[in-house]
């Protein structure tokens, strides 16, 4: 299958390893990945902070760039949710943007949806002999409704021991510009999440959103907790031949 990769601006700039892992994983499974070069950003930060017009401009670029693709992978729960949930209401009703954004929205998928629902695979042949805990990020959990897709994928990874995270469904406190505007509450939420993570004894905290992982991981690093954070794609791309850790 031909899959258009929307890498997202955060992954593109700060976490290229996640994008590389996505490419390695999907090619290993026999699919073709294309990267439309004109892509930049879905506009989530602007939209969620109240800069709707700036977000609309970025949305225009997104829908033009991805108009011709049937399957669009966004390896970030919140960016996928931005397009799927918010694009249908981002343009003025009846406008060209409204029509185009509403059309493209349902074609955008998170990695776990792509693998489980579209490609019909839960065992991707990965190998990752480590103790892992999974944080279901809010937009993945409540906007996309990913359910147990990510953990089904993780459970099928050879060698991986999945341990349950207490308070898993509670927000980590990132929240985009919330992390800066309400630094104290964000930090308090992050430290509670980090405490639950360390209590699991896991080596790795996994999620489908690098923004949240940047926040929890940054908190864990500050505490010198010795826990790594990894995007789901990086664990699923790991094999005996090319281990991620």
């Amino acid at each position, binding site marked *: 299958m031909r899959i258009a990769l929307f890498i997202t601006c955060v992954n593109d700039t700060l976490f290229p390893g996640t994008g590389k892992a996505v490419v390695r994983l999907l090619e290993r499974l026999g699919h073709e990945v294309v990267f439309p070069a004109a892509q930049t950003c879905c506009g989530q930060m602007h939209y969620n902070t109240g800069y709707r017009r700036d977000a609309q401009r970025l949305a225009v670029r997104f829908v033009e760039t991805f108009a011709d693709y049937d399957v669009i992978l966004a390896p970030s729960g919140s960016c996928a949710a931005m397009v799927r949930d918010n694009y249908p209401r981002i343009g003025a009703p009846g406008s060209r943007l409204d029509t185009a954004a509403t059309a493209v929205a349902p074609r955008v998928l998170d990695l776990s949806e792509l693998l489980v629902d579209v490609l019909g695979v839960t065992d991707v042949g990965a190998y990752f002999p480590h103790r892992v805990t999974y944080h279901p990020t809010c937009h993945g959990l409540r906007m996309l409704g990913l359910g147990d897709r990510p953990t089904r994928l993780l459970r099928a990874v050879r060698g991986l021991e999945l341990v349950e995270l207490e308070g898993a469904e509670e927000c980590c406190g990132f929240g985009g510009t919330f992390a800066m505007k309400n630094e*104290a509450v964000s930090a308090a939420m992050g430290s509670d999440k980090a405490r639950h993570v360390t209590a699991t004894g896991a080596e790795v905290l996994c999620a489908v959103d690098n923004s949240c992982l940047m926040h929890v991981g940054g908190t864990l690093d500050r505490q010198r907790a010795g826990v790594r954070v990894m995007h789901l794609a990086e664990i699923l791309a790991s094999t005996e031949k090319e281990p991620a850790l």
Partner: protein
Amino acid sequence: MSGTFVGMPAFPEAASAATQNAQLRHNLRKATHTIRGKRAAVVSELDDWAELRAAGKAIKDRTLRHLDVYLEQLEEAVTAAGGHVHWAADAAEANAIVTRLVRATGETEVVKVKSMATQEIELNEALAEAGITAYETDLAELIVQLGEDRPSHILVPAIHRNRAEIREIFNRTMAEWGVPAPANLSDEPRALAEAARVHLRDKFLNAKVAVSGANFAVAETGTLVVLESEGNGRMCLTLPETLISVVGIEKLVPTWQDLEVFMQLLPRSSTGERMNPYTSTWTGSTPGDGPGDFHLVLLDNGRTDVLADEVGRQSLRCIRCSACLNICPVYERAGGHAYGSVYPGPIGAILTPQLRGTSSELDASLPYASSLCGACYEVCPVAIDIPEVLVHLRGKVVEGKGTTVERVAMGAAGWVLGDEKRLGLAQRAAGKARGLVPKRHLPGPGAAWTDTRDIPDIPEESFRDWWAGRGRGQQR
């Protein structure tokens, strides 16, 4: 601490102070986690919760879209049943009406059933100025009133107090207000509830005038509905001769049958019970049973402004259950006072800026008092999309502020992100400067990140550069 919210700092500062208060954090964590568990248990008992929620949403939407029709219908039905209907456009009008009605009875004391509307209009303060003492009779309201404190939760205004603090307040203050706390009062909730019973008993038995709100007002029949637990509501609604109910115009439901939905949604969402201990319904006045003189004060106080906003309108579906507060990770850590309003938590973050506007720094900061995690929307029994309204209100705040540092930064970010070549250049510049970026101490606004969190390593090469190189066969 004062009894009102005037002069509060913006949310981030107030919340920051709250996160440092270990006692408060513990009290809130314990209380919210207790009620979350109870709510989840009784909601999961009902297989048709989703259908009830959809019906509750639809009934409220029907009401709001035809509110003028229902308000006139309610007025007619209440009047036909022997009640008197008054209309108040704002807090001052409502307070003046209630003051006038109390004065007409010749009384200088009233007993009160917990009511958000009367807190919102600061009725107690207005009555005090007129020489009328209002006694709060709900246990949590009593704790707040005795402690000269502010409410911090919709359902349990004293949620920020634990049993030891409540005992201290009772011991210190009850004597000033009437029957003193018993000697050797323990901090057992049962003993504290008993102390409240004894303290208020004479007030109830001798009260001539009561003031209440209402959870619902049925347009079709003119029936008012109050849900409660302690029996203080029944006391106030039954024993006095005069009853004055101050009710927001959004509290209406069209028909008696509609209560079959809300009487399931509200108790389970609110106290996590299948049914609250007591619900009273009354229609006008009934000879020989309850107050002979009944007054309904219909309150606007900004609600029509909320109604006029097609996105914000859904906020008026709120039935004040508090489920969104109890689930909210921000509320749990910031506490209710930080929201600077009688409506704290997620619902307050959307309701207050709509009722009061966003001209003050505090009110403008409320739409940002959320990580947009969506837990509030998920538990809301009338499906208010709180994150949607928060984002909508953020847009209004931005529009209203003109050119700010943030506006400029967002514009610059938008410009860079608006074109893949500019983004690529910025990424390459960042990659080159990676060694210069400190992990732990960013200057300026970046400190808001690095005060508590390390920043990730900036990669040498962006994904798009890697992909381009891969296309040229350099990296496989």
